[in-house]
């Protein structure tokens, strides 16, 4: 298996708070990794570091075989190859869905408007949003907004897609439609790292589950093993809490 991305000994602190304390994680191409862990364990920060939205303090991130955290790396070029979807969608409210999706391809990738629109329409059709292409985001339901945000990231045709708790801000009845989109992307072979609280879903689609605890990956493995017989006591405690909350 070829490697898509390798995170090596990444440290990140905000002021005195050490959020990441030496994270190591390898993702193979076409692999789906579920990043689980309590709130504040550093899942979001890790994803933002991979996308260079946060500078790291130590360690490195290697995309393909390029160290993207080295000096002199053009972060804009890197971000064109890594998509990220946020918990709060972050669609641009002053643009139609179509313009949201074509902005990156036109302005960053240099596609013509026609090419970008074609690419957008294809994705919108695939994910059942074609009738929303000319709507503004505030006319869409949360689930539709998040699907549009996923389409926006996918329109860049990234090598890697990062999903940062993309269903956490949604009403329960809207979660399924977003998970279906992610499932389809996984089946189509998209390389993804998803931070999630949806354990059932993680168990279902992840090739590997990584448990992030206090800024380090404490344990990782195939979902069957991670959810049924985790080795580390802290992993066990975390999963027991999740089960007690009825989320698994």
């Amino acid at each position, binding site marked *: 298996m070829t490697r898509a991305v390798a995170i090596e000994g990444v440290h990140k602190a905000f002021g005195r708070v050490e959020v990441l304390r030496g994270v190591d994680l390898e993702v193979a191409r076409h692999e789906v990794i579920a990043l689980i862990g309590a709130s504040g364990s550093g899942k979001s920060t890790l994803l933002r570091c991979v996308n260079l939205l946060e500078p790291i303090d130590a360690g490195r991130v290697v995309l393909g075989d390029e160290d993207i955290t080295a000096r002199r790396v053009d972060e804009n070029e890197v971000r064109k190859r890594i998509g990220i979807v946020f918990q709060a969608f*972050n669609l641009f409210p002053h643009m139609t869905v179509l313009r949201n999706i074509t902005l990156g391809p036109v302005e960053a990738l240099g596609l013509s408007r026609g090419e970008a629109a074609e690419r957008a329409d294809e994705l919108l059709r695939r994910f059942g949003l074609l009738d929303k292409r000319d709507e503004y985001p505030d006319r869409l339901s949360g689930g539709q907004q998040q699907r549009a945000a996923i389409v926006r990231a996918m329109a*860049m045709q990234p090598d890697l897609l990062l999903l940062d708790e993309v269903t956490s801000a949604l009403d329960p009845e809207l979660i399924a439609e977003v998970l279906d989109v992610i499932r389809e992307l996984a089946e189509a072979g998209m390389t993804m790292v998803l931070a999630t609280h949806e354990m059932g879903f993680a168990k279902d689609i992840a090739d590997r589950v990584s448990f992030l605890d206090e800024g380090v990956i404490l344990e990782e493995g195939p979902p069957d093993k991670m959810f049924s017989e985790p080795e580390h006591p802290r992993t066990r405690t975390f999963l027991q809490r999740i089960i007690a909350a009825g989320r698994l």
Partner: protein
Amino acid sequence: MSIATPPGSPSPPLPPGDRRSRILGGRQWEGRYSVPIAVASTVIFFTVLILLVINSPGWPEVKRSFFNVQVFRESFPDISRKFLKNVGAFMIAEVFILVLALFIAVLRSLPGPVFFPIRALALGYTDLFRGIPTILVIYILGFGAPALQLQGVPRSPFFWGVVALVLVYSAYVAEVYRAGIDSVHPSQVAAARSLGLTRWQGLRFVVLPQAVRRVVPPLLNDFIGLQKDTALLALVGVLETFRQSQVDVAGSFNYTPYLATALLFVLITIPLARFTDWLVARERRRHQAGSAL
């Protein structure tokens, strides 16, 4: 909840509750008698006020020197012709203010330690021109700059008066823009950057369009002030409407021309103020419609 408004329509179809509550100052007064009550109280209020004024001991004198129909008729055409000069100054200044202020606001929002000198410069500019009374800037530039006798630079007081207004108002408008820029959530920038857009592209396509939209009402507020301040150009010798009214007052020994000038300003600024209110109300309705979903 949201209502489609035909573009350019001066009075949008408001839901009746909104229309009434805005004029009457509170939803608790909504009801079928609210309009007649408002009309009656307005009529009574102004009748009493007018009776008070015209029964005051000095009224005949004031009436003669401020409300002289004859003088009004004679001076109004000239004064309104000169008012075009004020409108011209306003429109020219406005264009330059919008551009210069946006430039300053963007400079002030540049991040990182490298840009500190530029930020400091922009900050110094806004502090300076908000600190000096407008009238002094007009005097200094209107009398000082032509005296430099620079080659190829106009020496007319009109030119320098407008420059002074641009400099002063750009400082205020830059602050308005900056508030708008600051009001755009950082997550919008993160989303733009995550698509590989440069900092400048993020500003241009994502931050500024949202920022400008939000600050249109306060911008219009500043322009109402600007429109009025064009009268200050009279002080450096621009023959605009206020200067003309001074001339007419001196010629007729009557103050009615001042009133005529005031009337002209009000005719421009009141519609602008109502338009601003309408924009604010529309923005609020949109916002409510958006968050209701």
